[in-house]
């Protein structure tokens, strides 16, 4: 029961306390307008170059837009603990770490889904993006799994941000790399081998591929494999992120590497 409170209410309070973009005046330009313009930019670039239609760029960038909520959210919700010197107080409690750390992903995941929904609606209004209504449930599942997977990647990055004392380099670099590598705008198959290999290990790559197929009319069962791989990648990052956090916490007791209070 208490773990559920730490997971849900703790996650909400941590979001209120540590997420830098929650004020409306910051949230709207950063979380909504910026990804919407990103979609417009790539869609018009696609039209100009004749490489692909609007649907290709809209679906790819809409799924990729979950990263803005999930990666920045998780990095801020963990890394800012160190910036605000609050981490000592948190780890001085005996609360269950699973509920503590994974609960922080709830709001970033929800935020990622909100961003994706907003940019899809914007694309319907401003671009030639169309998707059959029957595809919406399956598309929703793909968005959810992708957001969860991306948030778990954010958990890993957040653990590193906590250790490296930096929240912006890690999040900015990861977001930009994902723009290139996840297939939102460039098909992974055309990337050099080593970049393709990295791409297949990142969250969203398989989610974007599944979302495109669903938007083209594929049934959920036809993309189940891709969704499964996306979920598996998220699971691996969840384990990695959690292991890093516990490792850093234990290392901090030995070497005072995290706490500053």
């Amino acid at each position: 029961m208490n773990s559920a409170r730490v997971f849900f209410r703790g996650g909400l309070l941590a979001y209120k306390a540590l997420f830098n973009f929650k004020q409306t005046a910051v949230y709207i330009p950063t979380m909504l307008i910026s990804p919407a313009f990103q979609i417009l930019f790539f869609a018009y670039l696609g039209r100009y170059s004749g490489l692909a239609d609007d649907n290709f760029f809209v679906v790819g960038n809409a799924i990729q837009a979950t990263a803005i909520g999930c990666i920045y959210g998780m990095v801020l919700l963990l890394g800012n603990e160190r910036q605000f010197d609050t981490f000592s107080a948190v780890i001085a409690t005996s609360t269950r770490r699973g509920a503590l750390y994974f609960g922080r992903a709830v709001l970033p995941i929800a935020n990622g889904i909100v961003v994706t929904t907003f940019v899809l609606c914007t694309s319907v209004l401003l671009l030639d993006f169309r998707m059959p209504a029957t595809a919406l449930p399956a598309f929703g599942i793909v968005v959810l799994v992708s957001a969860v997977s991306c948030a778990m990647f954010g958990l890993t990055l957040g653990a590193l941000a906590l250790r490296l004392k930096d929240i912006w380099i890690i999040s900015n670099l990861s977001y930009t790399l994902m723009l290139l590598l996840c297939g939102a705008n460039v098909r992974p198959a055309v990337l050099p081998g080593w970049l393709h290999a990295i791409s297949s290990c990142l969250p969203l790559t398989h989610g974007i591929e599944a979302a495109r197929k669903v938007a083209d009319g594929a049934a959920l069962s036809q993309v189940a494999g891709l969704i499964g791989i996306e979920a598996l990648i998220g699971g691996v990052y969840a384990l990695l992120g959690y292991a890093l956090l516990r490792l850093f916490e234990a290392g901090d007791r030995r070497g005072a590497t995290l706490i500053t209070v």
Partner: protein
Amino acid sequence: MSVIEADGLRRSYRTSTGVLRRRTHEIEAVRGVSFTIDKGELFGLLGPNGAGKTTTIKMLTTLLLPTAGTGRVLGYDVATETARVRASIGYVFGGDRGLYERLNALDNLRYFADLYAVEPRIQRKRIAEVLDIVGLSGRERERVEGYSRGMRQRLHIARGLLHDPPVIFLDEPTIGVDPVGSRELRTTIAALSAAGKTILLTTHYMFEADALCDRVGIIAKGQLLAQGSPAELKARVADRTVVEIEAHAVTADAVEKLRRIPGVVAVTLDERDDGQLLRVQSASGLELTQTILARLGDARVGRIATREPTLEDAYVDVVTQGTRS
């Protein structure tokens, strides 16, 4: 049975310097500290900055592993039984950081009430109680970023009391707080002690330790140099007189000359915003004021007073002797 036990606690850190030629240094922050604190006792750990007070408290609150020695709280080993220790203690940080600035006090306390597993059905009542104890009732819906330093410190204490722990660690709770705020905090600490809590308090304010503590330990350079009740420690210097001089431009050279005066036991010079405060301890019965003034050279001298020794003088004596040895 002792509630808090430190037995030969040691803690060293490794630091590196240089870019191309990295050199690793080992710094011993705490060097074999031992003490015990009984149930309901308020024990003060006194020492200058960098003496090892915070490192000691961090080891006893499980945040740092001792390099050697053992620490126990309520019989639980701080190195291996961390969950049990953490559930039994409240750790109150000094300073004005370490709180969620963008949240109000109520949300800060709600969050930590969950982390400390305070039963949901009693959370609201308990939060109201701790706000009342620290005198923040009515201000709980204000964001912490608008709080004064004293209010933040009181919120730190409230957070440490949420789960009603029997043992409380207070790490320099009045540091940087104005005199009125400090007095209110001391009243709160005294009330906690009166309520039967076992408290370890670190401070470098002697009057605070004198007013609050049942016993104090003096720590310097990572070593516990003396411990006892404030009265016992003051008895060490009972046979002395202290000459206190407000001055300007007293040089280190002049201080050395004062130390060489026969009968002088200790000399300290504190730099203050409005000048310097020179304290000269000597064997009682000696009249040294004129000799001292003669050796101050070009220094400008203000108020001069002769008084009985205080805990601070005992502290100076202990630290001075400890540093020499």
